């Protein structure tokens, strides 16, 4: 499959700050790449370079097969961008905003208008369509901005934190719009802080921090990469939490997380069911009463924290998972 977005060695410095530090990425046509990273990781900078708003200091990038540095205008014909902060014109109405964008994509008057109406319907802004956007709520502006990215039905979409500020209903609605577009062949690069969103939408997740890729894969692969499973047990008596922690410590491959409020203890392990059986035996022998117990895969949140939290100790991304396990067992 051909790559709709590909970048190699993207580097961007702002004075002292290195926002991007040799980032590589590749998004096959008709797929979704989720760019995940903490604040200041370089997500917006990467999007800005790929959408021709910024020039990289080093590296190259092609979008829809076209070099972003050599032919920015040709790239712009084929992309839609919704930036991190909604850029809607407050003096214009929702309809006028979208119509203007259509005209600037050179869709012609008729088509621009029809498209504006269509998108206002799709994003449930029909009622507010002819009102000045000054009176729009934050979520409405966000939706209008997203609609703006879709005006020209571009084959490649860049969405920078598209669901920030949306209510749960609008978020689900946007997810379904994105899925629909992707099934029609659109390629999407989206950045997000919500791991669930990446889990739900992205075919592939690229975790970046300090402008570098620290992990890449599907949500499942990332979970495997971080390693193992989690035993999650809810105790009958909160007083036994410390006892449980001590009993299970020899099995843990990482920090044990115990929470008084929910009387829950989470123990990272490797080895699956046999280890769970072992754990239950130990707890039983120690006289710890359980309300509930289960074995589960790590959540993406745990993956994210493990990956970004360990970067300082383990700069190499590839073996971060394995090495961190070793490191942690020593501690344990």
């Amino acid at each position, binding site marked *: 499959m051909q790559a709709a977005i590909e970048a190699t060695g993207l580097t961007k410095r702002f004075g002292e700050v290195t926002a991007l530090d040799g980032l590589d990425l590749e998004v096959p046509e008709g797929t979704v790449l989720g760019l995940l990273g903490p604040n200041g990781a370089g997500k917006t900078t990467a999007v800005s370079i790929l959408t021709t708003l910024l020039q990289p200091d080093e590296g190259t990038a092609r979008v829809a097969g076209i070099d972003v540095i050599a032919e920015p205008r040709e790239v712009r014909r084929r992309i839609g*961008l919704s930036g991190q*902060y909604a850029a809607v014109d407050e003096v214009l109405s929702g309809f006028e905003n979208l119509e203007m*964008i259509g005209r600037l994509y050179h869709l012609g008057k008729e088509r621009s208008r029809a498209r504006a109406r269509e998108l206002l319907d799709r994003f449930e802004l029909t009622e507010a369509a002819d009102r*000045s956007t000054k009176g729009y709520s934050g979520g409405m502006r966000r939706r209008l901005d997203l609609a703006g990215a879709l005006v020209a039905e571009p084959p490649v979409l860049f969405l920078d934190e598209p669901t920030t500020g949306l209510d749960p209903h609008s978020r689900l609605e946007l997810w379904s719009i994105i899925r629909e577009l992707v099934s029609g062949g659109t390629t999407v690069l989206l950045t997000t802080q919500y791991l669930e969103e990446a889990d739900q939408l992205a075919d592939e997740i690229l975790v970046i921090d300090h402008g570098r890729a620290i992990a890449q894969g599907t949500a499942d692969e990332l979970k495997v990469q971080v390693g193992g499973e989690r035993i999650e047990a809810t105790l009958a008596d909160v007083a036994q939490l410390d006892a449980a922690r001590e009993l299970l410590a020899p099995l843990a491959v990482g920090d044990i997380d115990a929470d008084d409020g929910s009387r829950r203890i989470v123990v990272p392990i490797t080895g699956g069911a046999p280890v769970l059986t072992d754990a239950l035996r130990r707890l039983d022998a120690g006289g710890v009463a359980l309300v509930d117990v289960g074995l589960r895969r790590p959540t993406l949140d745990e993956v994210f924290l493990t990956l970004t939290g360990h970067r300082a100790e383990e700069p190499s991304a590839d073996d971060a998972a394995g090495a961190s396990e070793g490191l942690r067992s020593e501690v344990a």
Partner: protein
Amino acid sequence: MSAVPQVFADTAVIAKRNVIKIRRVPEVLMFVLVTPIMFVVLFGYVFGNAIQIAGSSYREFLIAGVFAQTVMFGATFTGVGIAEDMEKGIINRFRSLPMSSSAVLAGRTASDVIYNVLSIIVMACTGLLVGWRIRGSLWDALLAFGLLLLFAYSISWVMAYIALIIPSVEVINNASFMVIFPLTFVANTFVPVEDLPEPLQTFAEWNPVSTVTQAARELFGNIPPGTPNPRPGRCSTQSSTR
């Protein structure tokens, strides 16, 4: 679509957007209409009575200067508008579209001419009320208005450039006053250049505002007989318009 008509089409789209803004934000329009009245009346009566120019009406001398000053202030709207669009991310939105990039600025400077057309009309009417008269031909007077607008249009581009470098509404507002006050006051707008002390006089003689003001003054036929003739060779417009 070939490249050249596309620039015009895009410019028209951007200009239309700004014109809608003129209609929908009446506060700005009020400012555009009231400031010129204020300038004409204030300068006309406050200075008009205090300064005497032998054998002529100072008020008549001054009006062309007020015109030049006001259109220059009008041009600062361009900078403010562009800085505002930069701050709100609208310029970045435009930059991600396959439109002609010069249209963003061309549309803005074009629509801002409307502000200046309005303020010139208001000023001319106010001027006529306080005793200013067009003493030359109507054609010359129209030429004078055209020249003032063209001047304002070029200042608009300067302001647009400044706004691109310093994309902050607040800074642009203050910076443009810092530039425009000396430019409009150290000139022949309110007093004859000959009355200024030496270093200022040199500045005023080279100041484009002086050239435009003097040209408008001559086209309106508002040169007071008592005013010494401009030195030949210094300001070419002054001699070429006659």
